[in-house]
């Protein structure tokens, strides 16, 4: 009886996972990613706002990829080159408050989804890049970027992702995602960015 229940639960979980995975068949979001929700907006666990199309040049691949081959229950990102993979990466960046490296509520939600993907692709090795906005000193921001990358990594490790699959690098404020000097641009630049380095 209890064994049967366990099997039922396991089946239910499998169905849910499959449903979640299948919902990923939608065309991946073209980078750049949308700005993060501003601090305080959106409840924890709320789905991210639908990405607004940005007037960026299309990446040099078909904008609507062919329907992916279904392999098991997941879309086969492994069929792509690393460059293609990172251009349309399923691993979402996470964002931080000014001069902070805490993994807070919204950030945890994104990292949990990234962890799910990393579990689906157990061969992926990922570098977590820590970035800062331009307002601090260049030197101190090397430390802040390191703290951001390390806190994202520690959270993923706490979710069971093997530490040796997660490398970090701090770029300080050297590589802003948005060169603007508005608060909106700064918010996009205070980030941990995920790059798949081998698969």
């Amino acid at each position, binding site marked *: 009886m209890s064994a049967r229940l366990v099997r039922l639960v396991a089946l239910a979980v499998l169905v849910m996972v499959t449903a979640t995975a299948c919902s990923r068949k939608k065309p991946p979001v073209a980078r750049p990613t949308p700005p993060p929700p501003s601090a305080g907006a959106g409840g924890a666990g709320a789905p991210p706002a639908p990405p607004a199309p940005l007037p960026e040049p299309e990446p040099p691949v078909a904008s609507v990829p062919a329907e992916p081959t279904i392999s098991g229950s997941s879309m086969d990102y492994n069929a792509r080159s690393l*460059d293609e993979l990172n251009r349309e990466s399923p691993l979402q960046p996470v964002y931080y408050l000014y001069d902070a490296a805490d993994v807070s509520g919204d950030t945890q939600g994104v990292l949990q989804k990234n962890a799910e993907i990393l579990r689906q692709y157990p061969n992926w090795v990922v570098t977590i890049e820590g970035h800062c906005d331009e307002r601090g000193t260049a030197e101190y921001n090397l430390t802040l970027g390191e703290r951001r990358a390390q806190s994202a990594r520690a959270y993923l490790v706490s979710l069971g992702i093997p530490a040796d699959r997660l490398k970090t690098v701090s770029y300080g404020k*050297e590589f802003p995602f948005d060169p603007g000097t508005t608060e909106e641009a700064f918010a996009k630049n205070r980030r941990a960015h995920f790059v798949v380095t081998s698969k």
Partner: protein
Amino acid sequence: MTTASRTILMALVGASAATMLVVAAPQSRPAPAPASQTAAPQAPPPGQPVQPGQPPAAPQQPSEISTSINLSGGAAPKLAVPAFIAASGDAELRTVGDMLGQVVWDDLKFEREYDLIPRASYGAVAAATSMDTVAFDQWRELGVNAVMVGIVRRNASSLTVQVRVFDVTSQQSVWAKEYTASATNPRQFAHTIADEFHMDTRSLVGVARTKLAFASDRDGERARNTVENRSIKEIYIADYDGENQRRVTVNRSLAINPSWSADGRAIAYTSYRRGYPDIFVSYIYQGKMDQPTGGTEIVHNFLPAFAPDGNRIAFMTNRDGNMEIYAVNRDGSGLRRITRHPGNDSTPTWSPAGNQIAFTSDRSGSPQLYMVDADGAGQPRRLTNESWADRATWSPAPYNEIAYAGRTGPGFDIKIYEIASGQIRVITDGTGSNESPSYSPNGRHVAFASTRAGRTHIFTIARDGQDIKQVTRAGNNVQPSWSR
């Protein structure tokens, strides 16, 4: 450069990069440059021509030189430096002569030891055609105490520059030199004259032959293997006055935080060329490179600072799980941990004697400056109580102070902490954001990066906040290091 070394170099960095990496070897300092300078008698007897190639005469007493130039009591002597005389009449040599006069004038002006009479006012004075035709009466009418007269002569493959300073009242030569060297970079004659004049007459170590290293994105190169559009930086050098700017690294990735070695022949910097930050020491005149801090994909190293002894390098590393300061010999031996604290310790700088290190730490909750013994023993002492303080740079002797970037609003200003008194003064004026100070080797000037002119550029400023000068013009330029 020998064919062999060029071949090695090209193998290292690729033929196209070779010319960028290799620059003319510097004239070693403090030995005067140009290297093949002919030793000339100092302050020959009045009226006697300088004898080229003659062994140096017994040096005269410096006090005599100083006394004879320092004519006006406490006030700085009024000095004129007209265009140097071209020994032959060709236009090219005249251009060199004009340039030499201007550059010596600029170099002397920079240290404020002499009251440099503006060159625009020299039109009323008949130009000398030799050392014997100086119009002393006219210089005196202009209010000049002393005039520097130079003659430049072209040899088969070199230039010879003779220079004298005349006391306008006595009409006697009080300082004389002669130099013969390659014509490759004639500005170097002027810089050498200025430095030696300052040394002989003021016992001052001038900075005319020093250089600035900095990181710049001016070439518009992009990081490879990234989806985002990322502008990389490489390390560049320039003369202290902004001339002769050139790139000295070929990372094709981010290269930042340059620090000159004491002998001016190597630059340590943070490079991401292997995909992670590690410290490289580039011997820029040899095309040789060391990697002393043992970086890996896990162990990252940043922010090198060469010690005054020219051997030790202090740096920041993540190897203990957070940022700590370590020091290592330039060959990778003698690794020693300097700080140990759960907070992050960053951006080290050495005291002039090399026995102390100042650094930034966030252990109090915000970035502040601390100092600690360089052997790592003892407790660090907190120096600042700013909203944000970073990039300490310890002044050379005789000044006993630390320059840093302190937050003064949305941006930063360059501040100076006087170690003995604990007093702090601000030397920039709140225009733009001003970061990453680096002292000149005589401690009288500070180079820094500022957004005051739009993009980020390198500037120099006197330690009292006067005489701000823009050094770079192209791209964004950050994190200057002033050579010793």
